[in-house]
């Protein structure tokens, strides 16, 4: 094969796998609305995401809020507007950092585990076994994870925001000496429903993207332990990139 043919073959292969990935998503989205619903599996997967990620969400939320409190205070002081510390921290968390950082954290914690789990089911023929029983593996394995992620991501994002805002308060008020009343009342003045809505929409989107990518990578893992570890790495990298790209795109719609 000459280099041009090789490049062409690679491009065709890439396009084909992207097509397969979209068909996979559309099939899964279709089955969300087709009964019977798997509530028990859904609850289990909600717990899976929540349980795995809660500690790391609280931890990163706290430190993000503290860093914001510190750095934003420093910046605002230059303009003599320290009083706006509360809304500055809250807005950057709710609109941007909360959804994005919590999504990245869940990807690393639960998303990678999800890919590994489904990948192992693939290579140990458990997915083939479901097919051989005349059943649909997408319905049993993929749909509950996508729905669970769409439910859990906004919740974990909200936890991240609350912890972050409170940590910003600790730094700004308790350590740097801002008045307590100013911090919270200014948040009330500046943080609108619109901001919360954007954060929520982002979280739902990220949940969809992460569960889709992580399920797909596991579902198409190649044979052997190596295949699963490769799939896991790819799932985390691709999810993270897509989170950041779609964050920007959604952001441009809601300026």
């Amino acid at each position, binding site marked *: 094969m000459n280099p041009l043919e090789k490049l062409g073959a690679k491009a065709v292969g890439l396009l084909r796998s992207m097509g397969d990935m979209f068909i996979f998503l559309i099939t899964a989205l279709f089955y969300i609305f087709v009964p019977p619903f798997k509530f028990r599996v859904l609850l289990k997967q909600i717990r899976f995401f929540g349980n795995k990620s809660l500690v790391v969400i609280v931890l990163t939320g706290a430190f993000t809020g503290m860093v914001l409190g510190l750095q934003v205070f420093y910046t605002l002081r230059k303009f003599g507007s320290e009083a706006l510390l509360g809304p500055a921290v809250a807005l950057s968390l709710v609109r941007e950092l909360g959804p994005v950082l919590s999504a990245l954290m869940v990807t690393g914690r639960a998303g990678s585990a999800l890919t590994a789990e489904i990948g192992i089911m693939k290579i*140990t023929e*458990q997915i*083939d076994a479901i097919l051989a*029983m*005349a*059943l649909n593996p997408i319905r049993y394995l993929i749909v509950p994870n996508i729905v669970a992620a769409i439910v859990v991501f906004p919740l974990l994002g909200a936890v991240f925001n609350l912890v972050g805002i409170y940590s910003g308060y600790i730094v700004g008020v308790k350590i740097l000496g801002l008045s307590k009343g100013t911090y919270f009342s200014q948040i009330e003045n500046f943080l609108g429903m619109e901001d919360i809505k954007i954060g929520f929409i982002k979280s739902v989107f990220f949940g969809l993207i992460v569960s889709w990518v992580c399920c797909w990578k596991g579902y198409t893992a190649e044979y052997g332990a190596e295949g699963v570890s490769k799939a896991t790495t790819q799932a985390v990298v691709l999810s993270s990139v897509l989170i950041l790209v779609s964050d920007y795109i959604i952001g441009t719609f809601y300026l």
Partner: protein
Amino acid sequence: MIEIIELKKRLNGQLVLKGVNLRIEDRELVAIIGRSGTGKSVLIKHLIGLFKPDSGSIIIDGMDIVRFSTRQLCKIRERFGVVFQGGALFDSMSIYDNIAFPLRERLRLSEKEIEDRVSRALDDVGLLGHEHKFPAELSGGMKKRAALARALVTEPSIVLFDEPTTGLDPITLNAIFRLIKKTHRKYNFTGIIVSHDIPEIFYIVDKVAMLEDGKIVEYGTAEQIQHSSHPVVRQFITGATEGPIEATAL
């Protein structure tokens, strides 16, 4: 009746099945023997549509399943029970739930009926009392038996066994073969067993097919195979390293 005609399949650029022909009558128990990597598992997976061949047909009761739509495939799969090479038990479920899974999800049965059938299946394979364990807590032989129970619990008319005894001690091996024979007598399914366990496999099946280099090189009763003059078959059943098959262990 299952009839496989000129089945060809290329995987990763390598022609694995080079024109397989095989005809299995209803209620027959047929063994497929052959070296590691000759495509026995791939052949088995074609029968339930997990692989699509590049060419050839698979006729089951007069219908060519190769041309089937996903929906039709799903319908025909309901008649199959499959024991995968590694067991393929669901790690996240207890043995009870593993065996109940196809009943719960496919047949509209009450929880009581499900319990009855699962207990019977567990009893058949001698696993009563172990139903609340998880696959990770079972020995290799118990896993194989659990997989057997799960495949048979829906009372399929065709059962595929992919190496149900590989890696077991001789006593467990014979117990499993006896179990297959017993359930075959009881449920009268058409059975295909992939196995390396020579000569034990010869004692339970009606016919034996030998797969070598992507083709069935010999097909006949166990008696005929044991006295075959085909050099490849002779070498395989005696396990000689000298002969037409090159031993490439290293």
